């Protein structure tokens, strides 16, 4: 099977030839190209080349041209801080006076230099993949973006006490998110990761999710012209497992803090599960530990299809060694061939 066939088969809750591997190494491409992280993300061409090399080196099943979390806030005019050994991080919040939310407008994708870089990388990957390798685009959900726009405290305050500002912010962010997702689909992305950590049960209770993040996900995902994968970026989701299929998403990316067997059972034949290796701990894994952990995940979650092996955060730390990434890949190929043999 090609990677595309493998992934599509598992998405239809059938068993492909082996478990697909989404090795979401966003920064390791810089190492491959001998560049600093800042230089690497300065051009779409670099990220495309980095993803091609990662795919070949570790025999993975997707291209993941995700740049960094504060990309969208950068498009809104926010600050991004680069470091030599980690993902570019958001600076001070873009909006310091919450009243300014009323005058906030969404940036146009075609006018944003940073977004155009991402589209460039997707276009190159599309040409290169010849539709054999899925290209996974990324958006920050309208509901989670305000953490970077306002800071978490102010956002929780308006979510609870200033519904007028909250509703306006959601309207602006939703318009932007849909345009941004569809621009990536148009550029060649096969599917879109809908990062929505604020909706996770780690951050807000189910009742509040039903009133807010759930409604926004339903309306946003319906207008994205491609499949979506909802990613909670290490947050828990079992308390809202019954609601997630109703959002229209096809995949759910789950936390390492949730039992993969329970997760698989909760989403069986409804959503494909993506996860859930502990990215932070992975930095200290030995190849032997890696082998054991991957084997265990596969044996618990892979039978019947509907499972893609990945880390639980959607961004493997720069400090994770090539040795461990090779061990992940080798273990997937060793234990992930269907039918899964339990031992």
């Amino acid at each position, binding site marked *: 099977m090609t990677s595309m066939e493998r992934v599509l088969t598992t998405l239809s809750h059938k068993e492909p030839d082996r478990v697909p591997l989404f090795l979401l190494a966003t920064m390791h491409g810089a190492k491959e190209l001998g560049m600093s992280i800042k230089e690497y993300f300065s051009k779409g061409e670099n990220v495309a080349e980095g993803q091609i090399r990662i795919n070949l080196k570790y025999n993975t099943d997707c291209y993941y041209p995700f740049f960094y979390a504060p990309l969208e806030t950068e498009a809104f005019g926010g600050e991004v801080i680069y470091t030599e050994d980690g993902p570019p991080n958001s600076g001070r919040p873009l909006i310091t006076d919450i009243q300014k939310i009323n005058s906030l407008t969404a940036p146009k994708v075609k006018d944003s230099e940073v977004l155009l870089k991402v589209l460039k990388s997707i276009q190159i990957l599309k040409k290169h993949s010849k539709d054999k390798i899925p290209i996974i685009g990324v958006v920050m959900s309208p509901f989670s973006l305000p953490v970077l726009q306002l800071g978490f405290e102010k956002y929780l305050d308006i979510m609870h006490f200033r519904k007028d500002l909250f509703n306006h912010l959601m309207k602006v962010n939703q318009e932007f998110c849909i345009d941004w997702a569809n621009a990536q689909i148009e550029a060649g992305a096969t599917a879109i990761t809908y990062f929505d950590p604020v909706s996770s049960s780690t951050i807000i209770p189910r009742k509040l999710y039903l009133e807010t993040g759930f409604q926004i996900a339903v309306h946003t995902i319906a207008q994205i012209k491609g499949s979506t994968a909802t990613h909670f970026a290490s947050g828990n989701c*079992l308390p809202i497992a019954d609601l997630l299929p109703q959002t229209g998403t096809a995949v759910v990316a789950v936390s390492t803090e949730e039992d993969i067997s329970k997760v698989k059972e909760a989403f069986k034949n409804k959503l494909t599960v993506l996860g859930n290796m502990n990215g932070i701990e992975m930095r200290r894994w030995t190849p032997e530990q890696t082998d054991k952990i991957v084997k265990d995940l596969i044996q618990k979650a892979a039978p019947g299809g509907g499972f893609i092996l990945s880390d639980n955060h959607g961004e493997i730390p720069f400090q994770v060694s090539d040795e461990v990434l090779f061990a992940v890949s080798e273990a997937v190929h060793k234990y992930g061939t269907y039918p899964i043999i339990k031992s």
Partner: protein
Amino acid sequence: MDNLSLEINALERALLTMDQSQAESIVIGAMTKGTPIQIASELVSGTLQRIGDSWETGNLALSQVYMSGIICEEVIDKILPPSNPLRKNQPKMAIAVFEDYHLLGKRILYSTLRASGFELIDLGGGLSTDQLVEIVKNEKIKILLLSVLMLPSALRIKELKLNLLDTDVKIIVGGAPFRFDTELWKEVGADGMGKDSSDAIEIVTKLMEEKS
């Protein structure tokens, strides 16, 4: 002091429904059973620790922990103002976000500790190693609470610790990298790690007793 279990249950209910006036009534009503500092450290702190524990076990969400801390901080400020000599402000304690601007974890811990009767200095966010070394030495900080979101920042605490070896400051760390890798705090040379605000209250209480 009388048992406060009924008040703790009632205060927890009030906080989780975000009923600030009810929370205030419960705390004021309990004042007949103890001094303001006892009410802060036993009723309020006890309730916030229970809420923190429920987040740790996945039964409550972070937004509920945050709102509970904010409400309690306001209520306690009324009966125990920041300048009140009964507040536990010695040895000198400060809290900061190391290297980035994700401030929620710090805010939750700051509120929880203040609502529990402690007084501490809020150094804000985005602080570098050099800035923290200077502040700790100049202000003679004895307990430094550091909140971190990003793994590279967590790893750089090792360098911070080395630069503070000539002081007697204790560094207590918390934040996502330490939650997901429970050995990391030892690797970077921290003196303790709190997985949540409940843990942090226990650690700070113990350190305060040791150092005072």
